[in-house]
C-alpha cells in the first residue's frame, strides 16, 4: 500500500518545503512553514505499516521509505516538535533558519523512515547540514563550524562503519547487531557522536545555545533523538550502551548543576536524558526499547517546551544567564507555567509525560535485573530535579529580582507553548492513551499509589536538599571546562607556546645546514662555470683525452 504514496514521504515534503521556502514571500512563506510539518505528521500516520518499496540505486537495494511502528513513534514525536516549533518560530525573521529548520526536521523524518543503511546515512548527513545551517543563521560561525566538524567526523565514522557492514554482510538492511567487530564499532562511534556521548559530548552544550531563540527549539528535538532511534534499530541490547548512557547521565547532571546559562543548562540536560535512553537500549528487552522510544518521545516534547520558555525569556529580556535573571514570574506568567511544566515533566513529576516514560524505563531496568543501573538512575533522577525542577524556575522566575518592563512573547509563541503543555499533561494524565503507540507499556505500573508515593518522596527529599544547600547551587557567571578544551583552546595554547620557540629552532636548523649549503652553492657554481665554459677547451685538452683513451685501450690490450 506504500505504492499509492509513491515517493511522497514526510521527509520529502519537509525538505522540499524547506528548499522552496526562501523563494516565497509574506504570508505564503509563513503558511508553508506552518503547513508543511502538519502535512508531514499526517503522512506519518497515513503511510501504512509495511516493508516499504525497494529502489535500486547503484546496485544497492534501498528502502527509502519503510514505515514501521518505531518509525511512527519517532515520526510522531518529530512531527509534533516540528509543528510546535514552526508555530513558535513563525515570527522569526531569518528565512535561512526557517528553511534550514524544515530541511532539518525532514531529515529527522527521513532517518525515522529509512529502511536501509544508505538511506539512513544520506538523511544523517542532511540532518547535519540542516542543523549547522540553523546555528549559522544566527551568525555564530565559529560555534557552527565546530558543530559541523564534529558532525562530519561522526558522519564519516558512521559512513565507514556502514561501508564495512555492507562489505562484510552484503546487506544494506537495518538489523540488530552487536559491536563485535571494528566496522561495527565505527558505526556505533558515529552514532554515539550524534547522540552526544562522551568523549565528544561537549558539542551539545557548545552549539545549541548559539542558535537563535527559535533555532534552539528545533535543535533540541532532532539530532540526538534521531541517534537514539538508530541505536534502537541497530544496537538493541549492546552492553556498551549501558555504560555510555550512565556516563552521559552523570555528566549531564553534574554540568547542568553547575551551569549558569539556561539554554546551556538545558543542553547538558539533553545529554543526561539521552543517557537514560541509552541505558534502556543497552538493556535491550522489548519493554526497554519501547521505554527508550517513549522517553525520547516525551523528551522531545518537554525539552522543546523548556527551550521555548528559554527562548521566550531570551526574546523578552535579551538574557539567558540565571545570575542576571530573576523575578520574571509576574511579568511572564504563561512562560513561567510552561517552564515549570516542562521542568516537572523532565523530573518525572506524576501526571506529566516524563513520569510515564521514566517509569517505563525504570520498570524495564527492574525487569532486566539491572540493579546497579536502576539505583544509579534513580539517584540521578533525584539530582535532576535539583537543577531543572528547582534551580531553574527559582533563579529565573521566582526569586526576588529587579522589576523590569517586559512582556509576554507574541501569540504564536504562546500558542506553541500552550499546545505542548496540553500534550504533556494529557499524556501524563492518561498514559493508557499511549498504548496504541507502544503497547509494551501496558503492564508498567505508572499511576499506582506506591509508585506515585515513591516519586513524590524522591522529589520532596531532593527539594529539602535544595533548600539546605542553596548557597552551593547559586549560579555564577563562568564556564565549566569540558573536553572541547582540547579543540578550542589547546591548539591556541600550543601555537602560543611554539611561537617564541620557532625562530630559535629554525635558526639552529639553518645554522646547522649552513656549511652544507655553502658547499653546495660552491659546487653548483663551479659546475655551471664548467658547463657554460665547456665550448672553450684548449686543443691540448682534447689531445690529452685522446691519448688517455688510447692508453686505456692499449693498457687493457696489454693485460
Amino acid at each position, binding site marked *: 500500500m506504500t505504492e499509492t504514496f509513491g515517493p511522497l514521504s514526510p521527509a520529502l515534503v519537509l525538505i522540499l518545503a524547506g528548499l522552496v521556502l526562501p523563494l516565497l514571500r509574506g504570508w505564503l512563506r509563513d503558511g508553508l512553514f506552518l503547513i508543511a510539518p502538519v502535512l508531514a505528521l499526517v503522512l506519518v500516520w497515513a503511510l501504512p505499516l509495511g516493508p516499504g518499496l525497494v529502489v535500486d540505486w547503484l546496485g544497492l537495494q534501498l528502502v527509502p521509505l519503510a514505515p514501521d511502528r518505531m518509525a511512527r513513534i519517532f515520526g510522531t514525536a518529530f512531527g509534533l516538535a516540528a509543528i510546535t516549533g514552526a508555530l513558535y518560530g513563525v515570527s522569526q525573521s531569518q528565512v535561512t533558519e526557517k528553511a534550514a529548520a524544515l530541511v532539518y526536521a525532514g531529515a529527522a523524518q527521513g532517518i525515522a523512515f529509512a529502511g536501509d543503511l544508505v538511506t539512513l546515512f544520506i538523511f544523517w548527513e542532511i540532518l547535519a547540514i540542516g542543523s549547522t545551517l540553523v546555528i549559522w543563521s544566527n551568525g555564530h560561525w565559529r560555534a557552527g563550524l565546530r558543530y559541523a566538524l564534529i558532525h*562530519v567526523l561522526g558522519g564519516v565514522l558512521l559512513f565507514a562503519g556502514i561501508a564495512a557492514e555492507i562489505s562484510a554482510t552484503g546487506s544494506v538492511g537495518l538489523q540488530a547487531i552487536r559491536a563485535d567487530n571494528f566496522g561495527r564499532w565505527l558505526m556505533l562511534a558515529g552514532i554515539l557522536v550524534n547522540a552526544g556521548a562522551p568523549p565528544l559530548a561537549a558539542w551539545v552544550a557548545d552549539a545549541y545555545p548559539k542558535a537563535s531563540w527559535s533555532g534552539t527549539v528545533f535543535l533540541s528535538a532532532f539530532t540526538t533523538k534521531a541517534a537514539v532511534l538508530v541505536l534502537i534499530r541497530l544496537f538493541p541490547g549492546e552492553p556498551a550502551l549501558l555504560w555510555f548512557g550512565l556516563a552521559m547521565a552523570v555528566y549531564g547532571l553534574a554540568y547542568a548543576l553547575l551551569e549558569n546559562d539556561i539554554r546551556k543548562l538545558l543542553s547538558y540536560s539533553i545529554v543526561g536524558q539521552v543517557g537514560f535512553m541509552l541505558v534502556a537500549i543497552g538493556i535491550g528487552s522489548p519493554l526497554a526499547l519501547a521505554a527508550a522510544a517513549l522517553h525520547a518521545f516525551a523528551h522531545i516534547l518537554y525539552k522543546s517546551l523548556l527551550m521555548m520558555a528559554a527562548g521566550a525569556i531570551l526574546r523578552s529580556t535579551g538574557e539567558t544567564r540565571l545570575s542576571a535573571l530573576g523575578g520574571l514570574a509576574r511579568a511572564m506568567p504563561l512562560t513561567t507555567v510552561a517552564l515549570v511544566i516542562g521542568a516537572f515533566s523532565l523530573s518525572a513529576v506524576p501526571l506529566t509525560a516524563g513520569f510515564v516514560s521514566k517509569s517505563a524505563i525504570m520498570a524495564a531496568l527492574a525487569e532486566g535485573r539491572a540493579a546497579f543501573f536502576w539505583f544509579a538512575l534513580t539517584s540521578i533522577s533525584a539530582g535532576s530535579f535539583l537543577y531543572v525542577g528547582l534551580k531553574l524556575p527559582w533563579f529565573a522566575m521566582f526569586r526576588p529580582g529587579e522589576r523590569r518592563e517586559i512582556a509576554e512573547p507574541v501569540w504564536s509563541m504562546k500558542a506553541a507553548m500552550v499546545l505542548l503543555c496540553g500534550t504533556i499533561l494529557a499524556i501524563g494524565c492518561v498514559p493508557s492513551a499511549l498504548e496504541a503507540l507502544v503497547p509494551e507499556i501496558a503492564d508498567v505500573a505508572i499511576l499506582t499509589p506506591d509508585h506515585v508515593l515513591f516519586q513524590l518522596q524522591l522529589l520532596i527529599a531532593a527539594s529539602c536538599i535544595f533548600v539546605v544547600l542553596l548557597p552551593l547551587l547559586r549560579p555564577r557567571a563562568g564556564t565549566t571546562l569540558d573536553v572541547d578544551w582540547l579543540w578550542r583552546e589547546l591548539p591556541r595554547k600550543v601555537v602560543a607556546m611554539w611561537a617564541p620557540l620557532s625562530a630559535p629552532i629554525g635558526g639552529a636548523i639553518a645554522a646547522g645546514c649552513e656549511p652544507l649549503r655553502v658547499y653546495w652553492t660552491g659546487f653548483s657554481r663551479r659546475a655551471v662555470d664548467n658547463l657554460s665554459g665547456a665550448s672553450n677547451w684548449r686543443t691540448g685538452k682534447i689531445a690529452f683525452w685522446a691519448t688517455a683513451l688510447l692508453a686505456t685501450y692499449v693498457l687493457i690490450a696489454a693485460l
Partner: protein
Amino acid sequence: MTILPLNDPALLALSLALPALATLAIAWLGRWPNLREAATLVGAVLLFAVVMMLLAHVLQGARPELKLVAVAPGLTLALKVDPLGMLFAGVASTLWIVNSLYSIGYMRGNDEPRQTIFYACFAIAITATMGLAFAGNLFTLFVFYEILSLSTYPLVTHKQSPTAMRAGRVYLLTLVGASMVLLLPAIVWTGLVAGTLDFRVGGILDGKLGAGALALLFAMFVFGAAKAAVMPLHRWLPAAMVAPTPVSALLHAVAVVKAGVFTVLKVTVSVFGIETLQTSGASEWLVYVAGFTIVAASVVALRADDLKRRLAYSTIGQLSYIVLAAALASPVAVLGAALHIAAHAVSKITLFFAAGSVYTAEHVTKVSQMDGIGRRMPWTMGAFAIGALSMIGLPPTAGFLGKWFILDAATGATNWFAVGVIVVSTVLNAAYFLPILTRAFLRPAKGPRREAPLPMVIALSATAAGTVLLFLFPGVPYRLASMIVGG
C-alpha cells in the same frame, strides 16, 4: 540507434578530429573573436554529440576500435573504447562545453591577452584528452599524455609573467620529466615482458613478473603519471595556479589531473589486472603513499590562505583517493575510483569556476578577503557551497558516490589504515572548506550585490546542478563504472 549513418570507427575518428578541427578553425578565425568563440562552442557541442553517440553504443556492449597508424613494428597508434575511457571522455567532453562558456566570460571579463592561442591550445588539449581516453594501448596513451602536457604549457604560462614562466617550467619538467624517466621505461618494460602493449581487462602481466618486480613496475607507472600528483610529485599543481581560472579548471577537472589518475586506473585494470595485483600484493605500498598524500595535502590546504592554492591542495588529496582505490585493487575500488573521477571533475570545476568568478567580479584571491562575499554573489558562492559539500563527500552531492565505494572497498579489504585516512581527511576537508563558507555567508558584506558576467554564472550554476544531479541520477556513470571490471 544512430541518427546519422556513422559507424563506430567513424565516430571514434570524429571524436579526435572534431577538437583538432576546432583548433584549426580557432587559429584561422583568430581575428574575429565572436566567430572564434563560436568555433570553440560549436566544436564542443559537436564533440559532445559524437561522444554521446559512442556512449550509447558502449552501454549496449560495443567496444569500437580504430587503428590509426603503425608507427613502427610493435608501436601502433590505435584507439579502443572501453567503459573507463568512455567515462573519462564523457566527463571531459561535457565539461569542455561548460568550460568554453565560462572561458568566454572570464577571458573577456578580465581582458586577457592572447586569447586565440588560449582557445587553440585548449582545443588541442581536448584532442589529446580524447586520444588518451580512447587509447587502445600503452603507446597511444603515452603519446597523447605527452601532447596533453605540451599543449597545456602555453596555457599555464598564459600570463607570461616571471612567476608564470617559472610555474610553467616546474609544470613541464615535472610532468614530462616523470613521464619520460618513469612512465616510458615502464611501458617499454611492460612491452618487453608481456609481448604486447595492448590494454586487456584482467591485465597482460599475469604470472610474467615476480611480486617485487611487479611492485617496482607499478611504482614506475604511478609516479611516472605525475599528473596524478601523488606526493612527492605534486608541486607542479599548486605552481600552475598562476594560470587563468579556466585553465585551472582544465587542469583540475576536465583533463590534466584526470589524465593522471585515469592512467593509473587504466594501468591497474588493463595492464596489471586487479587480480594479479591482489594476489601479488604489488600495490599495497601505494595505499600508504596515497594515504599520506591525502592527509598531508589536506593539512597544507588547511593552512593556505590563497583560495586557488587551497583548491589545488584539495585536488591533490582528492586525486589520491582515486590512487588509493587503484591500490586497493578490487572491483568495488575500481568502481569507486571511476565514479570519483566523474564526481571530482564536476565538483572541482564548480569550485574553480566560483573562484574565478569571485576574482573577475571582485579581484579577490585570498580566503581572508572573502568576508561577506556570499551575500554579494549568492549564485557564485551557492555553487561553491555545493562543490565544497561534494568535496567533503556529503550527500546529496556527487562526491558521496566515489567516497562510498572507495570506503566500501577499504572496509571490504579490512584495510583500516585506508579507512582511517578517509575518516581523517573527510574531517580535514570540512575544516578547510567550511570556514570559506562561513566567511562568505556569515560575515557582513562590504558592498552591494554584484555577480560575475552572465556566461560565468550560467556555467557554474550548471556544474553545481550537475554535482547534485549526478548524485540523484548516477545511472549512466555507474553502469559504465561497473562495466570496467565486469567487461
